[in-house]
């Protein structure tokens, strides 16, 4: 359930980038402070493990389909929340760059859905609270299942919210929810089962590995606070989109919020660039998105859409189509010429 660039609006994308960059920065700083030099190679290879594990499937009995491990919760149990977040984020980043799984803008959303949710929200707030210090068999089973389910449900929920807030998909919010949540109920159960099985395998084979994480974490309260803040940011960002009729409302609120969190990554680097660009483009009339929940009124909505449709009046559909074809031809031609000339230029050198 990777979020994809094509379903995202730049505002939502930038907001989620900011949130995820903040999370990654926070966790990097924490790890830097801990200075456990064993952690660098361990996180690296466990990321590789996660990646490799996701390529192995198992068949889910009775359905004929197959599943695999997402791993956010498992890594949090093994490495602690900060290292787990960085590891999941790095796997997602490789997937974005090499398999274009998701995409570069959607990376922020994906890190949030699959990394921050299980590692910084569910693990400290649910798993650690419930599991206690010396859990029995039953308790461990129940808590692991509940945590995995919760992580999956929250992840799926944020996919839905992000998609809806972006407004590219016409899928109504309620239908989308009804589609996503039950599917992820099943996936969450499977995730819980695999996590539990792997943890108990490790407990039998190398108990000392799990002992590392069983002590109470001193910084968990701060992490929890950070989690709450992030959550608030998300909800504020998502809801303000729905609440505000004024298209600029979200940009304004996000800019204000990201400014207020005063994490350095928000002002420097990519997110700032994204928001700045968004501000520039937003000076021109923003297209009102047709209210997806009211499909019958689409023509009316279209007529209110200020620009795109205004040019695309009745007759100009043809003009658009002709123009599209010509543009494609032009692009292809340019590429061919470039390739030829490139070859000609390179050939004498070589």
């Amino acid at each position: 359930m990777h979020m994809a660039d094509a379903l995202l609006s730049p505002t939502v994308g930038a907001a989620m980038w900011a949130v995820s960059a903040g999370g990654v920065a926070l966790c990097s700083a924490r790890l830097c402070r801990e200075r456990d030099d064993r952690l660098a190679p361990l996180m690296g290879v466990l990321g590789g493990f996660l990646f490799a594990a996701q390529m192995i499937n198992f068949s889910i009995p009775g359905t004929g389909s197959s599943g695999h491990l997402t791993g956010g919760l498992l890594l949090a149990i093994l490495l602690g929340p900060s290292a787990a977040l960085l590891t999941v984020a790095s796997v997602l980043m490789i997937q974005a760059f090499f398999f274009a799984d998701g995409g570069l803008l959607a990376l922020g959303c994906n890190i949030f859905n699959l990394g921050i949710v299980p590692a910084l929200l569910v693990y400290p707030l649910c798993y650690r609270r419930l599991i206690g210090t010396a859990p029995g068999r039953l308790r461990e089973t129940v808590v692991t299942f509940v945590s995995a389910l919760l992580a999956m449900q929250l992840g799926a929920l944020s996919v839905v919210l992000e998609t809806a807030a972006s407004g590219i998909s016409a899928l109504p919010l309620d239908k989308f929810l009804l589609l996503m949540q039950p599917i992820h109920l099943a996936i969450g159960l499977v995730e819980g089962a695999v996590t539990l099985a792997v943890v108990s395998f490790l407990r039998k084979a190398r108990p000392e590995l799990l002992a590392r994480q069983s002590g109470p974490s001193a910084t968990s309260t701060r992490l929890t606070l950070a989690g709450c803040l992030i959550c608030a940011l998300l909800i504020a960002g998502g809801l303000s989109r729905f609440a505000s009729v004024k298209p600029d409302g979200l940009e304004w609120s996000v800019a204000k919020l990201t400014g207020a969190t005063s994490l350095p990554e928000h002002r420097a680097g990519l997110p700032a660039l994204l928001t700045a660009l968004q501000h520039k483009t937003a000076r021109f009339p923003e297209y009102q998105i047709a209210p997806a929940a009211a499909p019958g009124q689409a023509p009316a909505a279209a007529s209110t859409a200020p620009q795109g449709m205004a040019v695309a009046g009745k007759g100009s559909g043809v003009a658009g189509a002709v123009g599209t074809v010509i543009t494609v031809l032009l692009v292809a031609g340019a590429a061919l010429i470039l390739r030829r000339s490139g070859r000609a230029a390179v050939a004498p050198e070589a």
Partner: protein
Amino acid sequence: MASVHGALLDLKRLDLLARGGTSLHRLDPRAKVLATLVFIVCVVSFGPYQLSALIPFFIFPACLIAAGRLPAGYLAGKVALVAPFAVAVGICNPFFDRGILLHLGPLEVSGGWVSFASIVVRTALTVTAALTLTALTGFAPICRALVRLGMPKTFAMQLLFLYRYLFVLAEEAGRASRARELRSFGRKGKGLASYASLLGHLLLRTWQRAERMHMAMLARGYTGTFLAAECGRFGARELLFVLFWSALCIIMRLYNGAELLGSLVTGYLS
């Protein structure tokens, strides 16, 4: 386990492409990362019903692929395979959004179809841009570029380690899952029990490998921080590259080139 192999080969292939010697390859990675980000933001900032305005954007990946001498067919094939989620969600649009939006002669096109097509085109654009960036730059340089654009160093190190051991571990996992497949006739043996146990073994071996790696790193003076050996230069060429493509993307964002061209031509004809 064809997928393990396929994914690995794609990785290796992109990695090999990144070692090409064109001037685009030599450009400082930061320039390419910045230009690609501007491009993607411009593309996704269009409204859901805009289709023709997206088309001119193909000029960016097309030029990079051509000038970087990348295999266009291979990249196109990869683009066709990815983003099933976006397409799956997008295909719902025609069902929920039936209002007629366009008339192409006698053909009436509903808003849902237009926005679906728009989603597909966006997917193609963003995915091609990301893959082109990787194929022109390579992963390690991208990481270094991101560090110099503000990414935390701990995270960058983590990315480099991951990338290095991806190959080793994925091959290990591929062999293990192949061994399981050879002895599970049909799908019977591929249930949860053997899956979890296989993962457990893999995790154990991974952990032992991490311990050995740590030993190797300590043996060579590792103290918890990584020192960078080389760094590129962000010169005039890089600046020009970024400015040119950003300007072009923003212009294409503001003026619908295809539409203008089309009305010009149809205006002539009628």
